[in-house]
């Protein structure tokens, strides 16, 4: 191996290295990253200097470069949709978002309606309780029914206030 290439001589698999020349493990380890354009400038220069002197590493670099080029080619061909495909996808997406928004708004309305029924039911129950208690004629029960009515209104009021706030966004 050339003394200037910057890699320590590495004993190991002979691979395609010519007789008398030891393969360079450090260069071999860097080759995929150099081919992928992910090595630093320093590492890339070291590998390029090395392959000038080492035919088997030059072949490895060439092979790795071709593999990366094939991947990039595959990527560019896959990412080449029929004309107008993106626009029609956007149109369908807009329609789905609109439908989702409408469905979410419907669900919110239903929930609000259900919660709105709560005070009506509670009022009805307390009125019924008051009638029953009046019929029995005990003032303590009349007071209890009144308190129950007041308490139920206090519980329901904040719920109604929360529900009446406008909700933003179209997310589910």
């Amino acid at each position, binding site marked *: 191996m050339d003394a200037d290439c910057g890699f320590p001589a590495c004993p190991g*698999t*002979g*691979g*395609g290295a010519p007789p008398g020349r030891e*393969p360079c493990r450090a260069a*071999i*380890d860097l*080759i*995929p*990253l150099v*081919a*992928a354009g*992910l090595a630093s400038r320093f590492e890339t220069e070291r590998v390029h200097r090395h392959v000038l002197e080492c035919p*088997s590493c030059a*072949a*490895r670099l060439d*092979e*790795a470069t*071709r*593999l*990366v*080029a*094939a*991947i*990039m*080619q*595959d*990527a560019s*061909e*896959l*990412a*080449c*949709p*029929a*004309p107008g*495909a*993106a*626009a029609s*996808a*956007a*149109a*369908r*997406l*807009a329609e*789905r*978002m*609109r439908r*989702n*928004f409408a469905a979410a708004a419907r669900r919110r309305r239903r929930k609000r309606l259900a919660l709105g029924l709560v005070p009506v039911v509670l009022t009805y129950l307390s009125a019924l309780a008051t009638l029953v208690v009046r019929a029995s004629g005990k003032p303590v029960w009349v007071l209890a029914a009144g308190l129950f009515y007041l308490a139920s209104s206090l519980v329901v009021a904040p719920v109604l206030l929360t529900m009446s706030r406008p909700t933003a*966004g*179209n*997310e*589910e």
Partner: protein
Amino acid sequence: MREPVENKEATLVALARAGDRQALEALVERYYAALRAVLVRYGGVRQDEVEDVVQETFLRALAALDRYQDRGHFRTWLYRIAVNLARDKRKREGRVVTGVDVSALADVPDFGSDPALTTLGRLEREALAAALNRLPESQREALVLRFYAELPLEDVARVVGCPEGTVKSRIHYALRKLRGLLAVEYRSAGSAVEGAASGHALGRAAREREEGGSYGR
């Protein structure tokens, strides 16, 4: 230069979420092709369902953006959702090896005789797809995001949630492994494939490796 682009994108995203049709179209135009490529090569999505998964990706990304802390990077959020969807599908339905939809390529420009731009042969593409499918998940994910989504290393790291150095090393191992897997693909495909692919890059790479190349071992 980067920041204004991201600001512009944040504006587009906000408008799209508020129902602006043009903003939505601009976002879809920007990511549609790369998202398809990522979903197909990740290996869990069939060609005939890729459109639906692209739609699902956009819907989820736009709907759940509030849950994403790094909102300035819509792109990484979008790819994270795409990768998660593909991974879930892959777990549910097993791996899917897909070539390319020929009808979708009807209008690919003719690159002529420039060897650097020659389109891949069908067999080469299938061998590459099959080899990618056999990579460990973390390596395939890093490779697909780097080359098919063309994300810079920094953004791949954001999507997969690990340091850039880890992503780099995953891509490194992925390329080494791919090289070995491609040789196996060609060997197992037999002489017909070998003959048909003989003029192409991957065919040559596989043959030369069998003749004595050794990196990646």
